[in-house]
């Protein structure tokens, strides 16, 4: 079955021109997002996962620029179109939910005003209809007494309720792609479970594609269909979720999976990925992960590996991915 992606990012490069030098925040990223599917993007802070999202919507700050690559939405390259055309796409075809709903919502307007603004901007409806639509949306995302809540300000809602309101706003124009950038990181786990459940239901109903950006491998395992692992502005591994978790090939993915404390297995010692995420102004030569990699060889410090296909829809940026297969024979949870 050959599916066509709704959104396809090809060789995206976003650089920030700062006073200290050029920060290559996103440096050649490729992936496809399919209708009704969830693409997980996982990585640590500074790996470029959020900048990728901002680049897709073209909402970078003035220092950031997309220097190369394409963002294709149904075949139209969003990096090339005029700003006024882009405005018609933001919030309508592609919507975004941010991590911190208190910052993302405007504190001086009511929830209703902010949802209605999006509706009235993209759809030709009068205020009354827009209001009714907003009430329906709030009900749909599980906010009790939506008729009352619609006139409340963000500070009057709890964190979970605010995130629900954000989702209502994002869904107001039935987007084709919903970008969720750490949507539950600021929330408690029991509320996180509620929000993720809600997003799954809404995805089923609307058939939209979701790009789930997070650092939490648990969320990825439970919600994503395909996964992109990013490190230092590059995709280091791309696979469907089961393959990635059962058979990781990149040393970084493998290390991450064993560095997290888990509820499902007994662990006596966590795996240590030594060192820190490299400074984006001074990336190491060769493979960017090489200073932290226990499998590195001399070649890794000289030459940057390309993404290579190691299985069906499974690509890895590593010369020596077979070594990870060797490492898998070690006993899980007991790294000395």
């Amino acid at each position, binding site marked *: 079955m050959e599916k066509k992606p709704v959104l396809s990012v090809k060789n995206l490069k976003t650089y920030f021109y700062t006073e200290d030098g050029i920060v290559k925040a996103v440096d050649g990223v490729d992936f496809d997002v399919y209708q009704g599917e969830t693409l997980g993007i996982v990585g640590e802070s500074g790996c470029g996962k959020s900048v990728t999202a901002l680049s897709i919507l073209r909402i970078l700050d003035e220092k950031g620029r997309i220097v190369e690559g394409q963002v294709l939405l149904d075949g139209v390259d969003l990096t090339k179109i005029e700003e006024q055309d882009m405005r018609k796409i933001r919030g309508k075809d592609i919507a975004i939910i941010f991590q911190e709903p208190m910052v993302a919502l405007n504190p001086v307007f009511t929830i209703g005003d902010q949802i209605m603004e999006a509706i009235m901007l993209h759809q030709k409806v009068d205020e009354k209809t827009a209001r009714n639509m907003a009430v329906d949306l709030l009900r749909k995302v599980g906010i009790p007494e939506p008729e009352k809540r619609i006139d409340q300000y963000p500070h009057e809602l709890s964190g979970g309720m605010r995130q629900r309101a954000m989702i209502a706003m994002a869904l107001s124009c039935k987007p084709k792609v919903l970008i969720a950038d750490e949507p539950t990181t600021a929330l408690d786990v029991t509320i*996180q479970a509620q929000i993720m*459940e809600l997003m799954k239901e809404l995805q089923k109903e609307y058939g939209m594609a979701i790009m789930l950006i997070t650092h939490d491998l648990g969320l990825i*395992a439970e919600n994503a269909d395909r996964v992109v692992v990013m490190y230092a502005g590059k995709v280091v591994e791309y696979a469907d979720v089961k393959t990635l978790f059962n058979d990781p090939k990149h040393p970084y993915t493998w290390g991450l999976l064993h560095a997290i404390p888990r*509820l*499902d297995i007994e*662990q006596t*010692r966590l*795996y240590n*990925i030594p060192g*820190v995420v490299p400074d984006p102004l001074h990336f190491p030569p060769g493979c960017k992960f090489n200073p932290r990699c226990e499998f590195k060889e001399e070649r890794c410090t000289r030459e940057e590996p390309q993404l290579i296909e190691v299985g069906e829809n499974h690509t890895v940026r590593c010369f020596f991915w077979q070594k990870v297969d060797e490492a898998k024979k070690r006993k899980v949870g007991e790294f000395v």
Partner: protein
Amino acid sequence: MSAILKVENLVKYFPIRAGVFKRVVAWIKAVDGVSFEINEGETVGLVGESGCGKTTIGMVLLRLYEPTSGRIIFDNEDTTYFFMPALRARSYIKRTYVDKFNALLKELGSKDAVVNALEGVDRRYAEMFFSEAKSSTGKFCSLLLSNMDEKRKQFRKNVQIVFQDPYSSLNPRLRIKSIVGEGPAVHKMVKGEKELINKVRSVLEDVGISGDYMYRFPHEFSGGQRQRIGIARALALSPKLVIADEAVSALDVSIRSQIINLMKDLQHEHKLTYLFISHDLSVIKYVSDRIIVMYLGKIVETAAKKDLFDNPSHPYTRALMSAIPIPNPNIKKERIILKGDVPSPVNPPSGCRFHTRCYMAQEICSKEEPQMREISPGHWVACHFAK
């Protein structure tokens, strides 16, 4: 194993003030009657969602907040009155000890009987009261309150904290040497500049930071390194109890595992006792020997790690466990989705505080508050229906 810390019925309310005269209009019941013990050398994990009072407990233990009521016994000494103003301390001592001893004396008849009926701190204080203080309240208070500065200093040295945010918890104007060395200098653990430098160097190297960096400022380090410095600051005083308040929550996954491993190694080397406060049950599971689960100012369940995970008995504990995403796509687990949000601690629900969100709630739950019950040795649950 002996208990190094014993907390009895700890309560901390914060006033909400309003109006011109800043009258107290309500109380936030952050911690509402919490009792637990920490044994020497073990790690106790304190887990709960935001607003459950876990951080407040840490702050009260450190006496950065004064407890509203309750008793905190540390290292076989009642430390509750250590930081109270003199008059309040006296009234606390009279209320907690003198009145109790006198009542017991009336009941049991002889001083020896009173002493024998008590144990631990109470027994020691009773002996002191009847012999040294000759049953005089004033004298007993003076005895306990003597040498207060020294006692406070000892307490501060023995209980240390590692904070969550490695950015705001280090003074940006101080060099690492001053940050780590201030404690040992104040407590006269080192003599002279040379010893101080050696001390700082050795502590820094313990946490994996080169001693040559001691003249740098905090901004020259990454988040993970700063957290190491925060740990070094706590360790420099050779404390008996380290409270880690969300110490790894702000860190990236790969850095978090480094710090957790480091803290475990240090515990082993220095025989430390940890109170590990976190909202993340996976981290708590990995580091702890015993776990305390809190909800809205109360302990709902406490047990050894294995018992808690093999047999989670409070519905909240179960919901919390089921809410955590498992990084394994092969497992599809039954998820308990709780309704609604955590209620406000200003007006906690009647009866069992969890009943508004509980999937097992019955009529009794809104009327009667469940007491802690021991369902198997060392496994305590506050639920009417726990088996």
